[in-house]
């Protein structure tokens, strides 16, 4: 019995190590490559695990010549704006869905669910024309159509969270003379704060990673976000892998920090989306 237990432990440990290796290896290899010179990457040193002649040249080029810092700044602006307005709008909507009876509620929920399943490609053409008419192409107004991706998800997660807060608390607040808005603001919001925070992080990541709308609506490089700017490093003819590696390493850092700090909230947000009963 003890021997089989030990054997199972070893198999388990081996599996975990292999899994971790597969998950981490691409990042590790990119990190190593970012310190290699072009000569080494395209020559015989392509597969060496330790750079022969380590250099920061790639980082310098990417940061100061290829506008990666500008892209990171754009991503922060776009993702933060989206998070703030989506959280406000989604909280109001989710509160109404969770706390009130009204006609058409199931239709509204159905629409919200349907929108989250749309192929985003369907909105790009009309929104492109709309933005062209309103002269909004190449601007931060791109955060508005982001709502099609983030808002349904936000409402969905928040409704689940609000449903877990007992109604009795609000009823007693009401008896004490609080207005509907005060109830939301003073009772529901603090209790729902963890859920709201979770939704905010998921929204932020979704907005940070958005690609299609930015590449179609903001063709001007001055408004490129990280994913789009990164995709332009891969040109048709010459790919400078050293620079690509350095850029990838830099843009992974913000995501890494968010994941390390907020992993509990992220997992809770992912699982309330559908699974948790």
């Amino acid at each position, binding site marked *: 019995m003890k021997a089989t237990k030990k054997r199972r432990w070893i198999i*388990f440990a081996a599996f975990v190590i292999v899994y971790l290796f597969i*998950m981490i290896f691409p990042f590790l290899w990119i990190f190593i490559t970012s310190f290699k010179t072009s000569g080494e990457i395209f020559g015989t040193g392509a597969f060496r695990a330790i750079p022969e002649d380590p250099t920061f040249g790639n980082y310098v080029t990417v940061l100061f010549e290829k506008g990666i810092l500008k892209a990171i700044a754009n991503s922060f602006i776009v993702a933060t704006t989206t998070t703030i307005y989506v959280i406000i709008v989604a909280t109001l909507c989710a509160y109404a*869905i969770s706390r*009130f009876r009204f006609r058409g509620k199931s239709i509204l929920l159905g629409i919200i669910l349907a*929108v989250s399943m749309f192929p985003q*490609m*369907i*909105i790009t053409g009309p929104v492109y024309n709309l933005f062209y008419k309103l002269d909004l192409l190449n601007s931060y107004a791109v955060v508005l159509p982001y709502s099609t991706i983030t808002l349904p998800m936000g409402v969905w997660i928040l409704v689940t969270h609000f449903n877990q807060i007992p109604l009795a608390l609000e009823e007693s607040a009401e008896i004490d003379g609080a207005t509907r808005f005060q109830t939301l603001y003073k009772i529901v919001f603090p209790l729902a704060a963890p859920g709201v925070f979770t939704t905010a992080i998921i929204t932020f*990541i979704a907005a940070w990673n958005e690609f299609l709308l930015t590449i179609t609506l903001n063709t001007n490089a001055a408004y490129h976000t990280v994913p789009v700017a990164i995709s332009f490093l891969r040109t048709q003819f010459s790919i400078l892998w050293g620079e690509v590696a350095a850029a990838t390493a830099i843009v992974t850092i913000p995501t890494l920090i968010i994941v390390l700090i907020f992993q509990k909230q992220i997992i809770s947000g992912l699982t309330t989306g559908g699974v948790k009963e």
Partner: protein
Amino acid sequence: MKHKLGFSGWFYLLPTLILIGIFSIWPVFQSITYTMFDYKLNDQQKAGLYVNDRFNTDLFNETTLYVGMFLEEELASVSEQADKDLIRDTLTNLKESAAPYASQEGIIKLSSSEAKGIQALYTTTKKTIDTLSQKYTLTHAENLPLLVEDINNSMIPSNFIGLKAYKEVLSDERMHIALWNTILFTLVSVSIELVLGLGLAMILNKAMVGKGIVRTTSLIPWAIPTAVAALMWSYLYDGSSGIVAHFFENVGLISQSQDLLLSGSGAMVSTIIADVWKTTPYMALLLLAGLQNIPKALYEAAAIDGASRIKSFFQVTLPLLKSSILVALLFRTLDAFRVFDLIYVLTGGGPGGATETMSIYAYKLMFGQTNFGYGSVIVMVMFVCVALIAIIFVRLLGTNLLDRN
């Protein structure tokens, strides 16, 4: 007890309704409209949705001015009196026909009698020029016939085509390939992700060592932008410097490392591997949440009844995990079906269209060729497929997806 939402309560819902209305619902109906027009942004006669025939007055006024000027100059190169009269008649006709539009600008609607008038003007003027150029050597022999065509071009025929584009899509070979690629990519990657994800979730559920670090590590591929992951993999797959391509060559999976991204099947396998790498951990986390909800007592009971591990997996785990699996499958299937950034960055749909999915094809039509009409048709086909997938899964799930709220 829940309150009824009063009139003022709609304030809570209004912002959501406005945003979803403008940026999600309206575009869908707009896209449906696009599919019924031969709508191309880069073509002067097709850059709008014209249900009726239209008239480009700017082009018309400019053209008639030049035709008149040139014809007047030709009076010198014509010798017979009859032909001089012909030119004078044509000039008068031109001036009379152009007069009503002289003060107009931009694109206007034409009544059918007006359209006939313009058509007649075009035919008579063209006839005059043809007759003259056969008889004489004209000063503007090259320019006049071209200019006359612009009278015709200033009439914009309706580009409404009804459902014709849907008929076209049925016989569009490239669309068939794109649909097949999308289905292949979705089926293969989602099945692999489900099997690996389920396995990973079950291992994580048996809490031993390293659970925390595995969970943290699993979140990173999910959290990084797909475009960044795709670029990273394109380096690993690269024909000359890519270590994964090099590894595949060494173990004999491919004969040459260049083949990986340059052969059709190699490129498809590569995109699937990259997708599996990025989303299996996400799948595992979703399923793990479901697994943790299964009471341990059920397994103990099954063990007492003498069920083997395998049997308890099929009799206890799978049935209780059914709704978690279906929800995870639903979201993953839809995501895979809509795949865009991964393929756009990794292969661009190549080589030779071997990894071109529906979104990539639609994107190239709309933003590469500015063919919004036909591009929207491809998007609509995608939309219908996505709706079918969603309906099938929602049926399988029963009503509990909506009921919980």
